C-alpha cells in the first residue's frame, strides 16, 4: 500500500472533497468511505481530520450543509456551491499543469485525462 506524504494529503483534500460533492450531496462518513474505495485504500485519511476541513470549506462558501433525517438520526449533508465549483475547476487546472510539468521533467507520457 502506498504511503502519501502529509503535505500531499493536505494539499489534495479540498479538491478531493469537492470532486466527491460534485457527484452529488454527501455526508462526512460516506465521503471518507468513497475516498477509500476510489483509492483502493491507498488514501487513508485520519477520519476526524475531514470535519475541520468541511467546516473550513463551509465558512469559505465552497459548500453548504443541511440536515436530513435518516434511520432515526439527523444527518448533516453537504452540497457543492457555485463558488466551490469554481475552486474545483481552478484546482483541476493547477493539478493538470503540475502533472504535465512533472511528466515533462521525467520524460513520461501524461496519463491524466480531464473529465
Amino acid at each position, binding site marked *: 500500500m502506498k504511503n502519501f506524504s502529509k503535505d500531499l494529503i493536505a494539499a489534495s483534500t479540498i479538491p478531493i472533497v469537492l470532486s466527491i460533492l460534485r457527484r452529488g450531496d454527501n455526508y462526512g462518513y460516506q465521503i471518507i468511505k468513497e475516498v477509500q474505495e476510489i483509492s483502493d485504500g491507498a488514501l487513508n485519511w485520519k477520519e476526524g*481530520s475531514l470535519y*475541520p476541513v468541511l467546516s473550513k470549506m463551509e465558512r469559505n462558501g465552497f459548500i453548504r450543509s443541511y440536515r436530513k433525517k435518516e434511520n432515526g438520526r439527523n444527518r448533516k449533508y453537504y452540497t457543492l456551491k457555485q463558488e466551490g465549483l469554481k475552486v474545483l475547476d481552478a484546482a483541476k487546472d493547477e493539478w493538470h499543469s503540475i502533472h504535465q510539468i512533472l511528466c515533462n521533467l521525467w520524460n513520461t507520457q501524461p496519463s491524466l485525462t480531464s473529465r
Partner: protein
Amino acid sequence: MEYPTKFDLQVAVQTYISAIDRNRLLDQDEREELFDHLMLETESLLEGGLTEEEAFTVSKLRFGESALISQQYEQVKPFAAVRKYILSGIMLFFIITGFSSVLQIFSLGSLALFHEWNLSNSITRYLDLGAKMMVFGFFLTYAFARIKRNQVLKKYEFWLVPLLGLLSPLLSGIAFSLGYNYLRLAGPTMSYIFLNNKIITGICMVSLALIYYILLYKRRTHLATN
C-alpha cells in the same frame, strides 16, 4: 469488592467528542455530526463480530487523536474562542442589568402594596423576599439551561436576553417615577429592601460562578476517569 463497570457506547462516544471539543469551539450541529460518524463506524465494526468496546476503540483509532482534531478546529475557527468570551461578557452584562431591574420592580411592587393595603412591615418584607426568591429560582434555571447548552435557549437568548436587559431598566425607571411618593414615604423599610436587592443580585452572580465551576470540575473529572 469491586465490580467491573459496564461499557456504555453512547457515553464513551460523547466523552471522546468532549475531549475533541475541549475548547468548546464546536456547535451542537458539529458535535452531532461527529457523533453520527463514530456511531456509524462502530456499528459497521460490530457487524464484523467485535464487541462494543473493541469496535469503539478501533473507531477512535481511525478517527484520530482528539488533541490533534481539536487543534485543527482551532485553526479553522481562530477567533471563535475570543468571540465567545466577548459575547458571554455582553450577555452577562445584560443578564445582571435585567435581573437587578426586575428585583427593583418587585421591591416597588411590595412598597406599593405596603402603602395601599396598609400591610405590616414584616408581611411586606416576606412578600418582597418571596418575589425575590422566585426571580432567583428563574435565574438558577436559566443558568443551568445555559451551561447545559439548552437548544431552545440557545436559539432565542441572543435577542431575548438583551431585549429584556434593555427593557427592564426602562420599566424600572417608569416604576420609580410612578412610585416616587411611596419611595419618599418609605424610610427605613425602603433602604432595607433596596439593600436586599443588591445582596440578592450578588448572591445570584456568585451562584452562577459556582455552578459553572462545579460543572467544569465534574466534566474534567469525568474526562480524566475515562
